[in-house]
């Protein structure tokens, strides 16, 4: 039951907490940079200090139980990409997730077999 102070807020009002409040104001994450489509997977390591994790960290960790990408996580937790990146970097520092760079697809240096697979897949849609 929401208190009287909160009752006028609904989804239309937008996020009640400014997104960067979730990251203690940090707008840049620590450690190595990672791509939007990098694969994130939980390491299933032990959480030694549960107090270090916010509910948002826990949600992100939950989504990474199966390998998934940074953008998919951002979309599924409904938090801005920049915030999700910081949360992921925190989890990586705690050893709870591993982040793998995507297979490089530099322009003009693409793997032709992958491209053919993409073509085949698109035609079969």
């Amino acid at each position: 039951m929401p208190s009287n102070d909160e009752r006028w807020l609904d989804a239309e009002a937008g996020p009640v907490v400014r997104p960067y409040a979730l990251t203690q104001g940090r707008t840049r994450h620590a450690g190595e940079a990672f791509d939007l489509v990098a694969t994130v997977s939980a390491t299933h390591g032990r959480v030694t200090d549960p107090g270090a994790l916010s509910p948002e960290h826990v949600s992100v960790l939950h989504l990474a139980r199966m390998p998934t990408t940074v953008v998919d996580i951002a979309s599924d937790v409904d938090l801005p990409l920049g915030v999700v990146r910081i949360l992921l970097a925190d989890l990586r520092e705690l050893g709870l997730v591993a982040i793998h760079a995507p297979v490089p697809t530099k322009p003009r240096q693409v793997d032709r077999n992958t491209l053919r697979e993409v073509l085949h897949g698109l035609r079969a849609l």
Partner: protein
Amino acid sequence: MAYGRFEAAGMAPRRHRAIKILLAGGFGVGKTTLVGAVSEIKPLRTEEPLTESSLRTDNTAGVERKTTTTVAMDFGRITLREDLVLYLFGTPGQERFWFMWDELALGALGAVVLADTRRLAGSFPAIDYFERRDIPFIVALNCFDGSRRYEKEDVRVALDLDPGLPIVLCDARSRESAKEVLIALVEHVLSVADEPVSR
């Protein structure tokens, strides 16, 4: 459970082959429609600190606090195989959000510039961007009902495009048509992959 994730429990984290394709074009040209026609569309927001260059265009002179901006992006995914997923990113049309483009463009397979023949000039910035960065792209003309049909070659001249650059006609609302656009892009990427890199 969202589909496209790895289903086998305990499977070693295999490299997820994520193919990134950009969809650019002026405002109102049908980017959202095209993403929705061909892929599972997903909400994606990004809240980013404004960079110095965007601060200049935003004219926030005198504002001392750190400024961030929220951008809603068109984002869609097409699962081609369990480990092969195509991600479509609609690049924000307004120039003040272009600081995001560089990150989006990094590692992108290629781009589709969606153009409206009634407002061809709206596609100039995107074409210029991809040409400068040597990112393979094609131009897709979204043929709205009632929009004047131009010959592809007239469009090529108007947009000053290279003779070898594919121009395709499409209906952004149609799944088949949107698929053909993506196929045309991948075929183009395959064809230019043979060319030596000009530096």
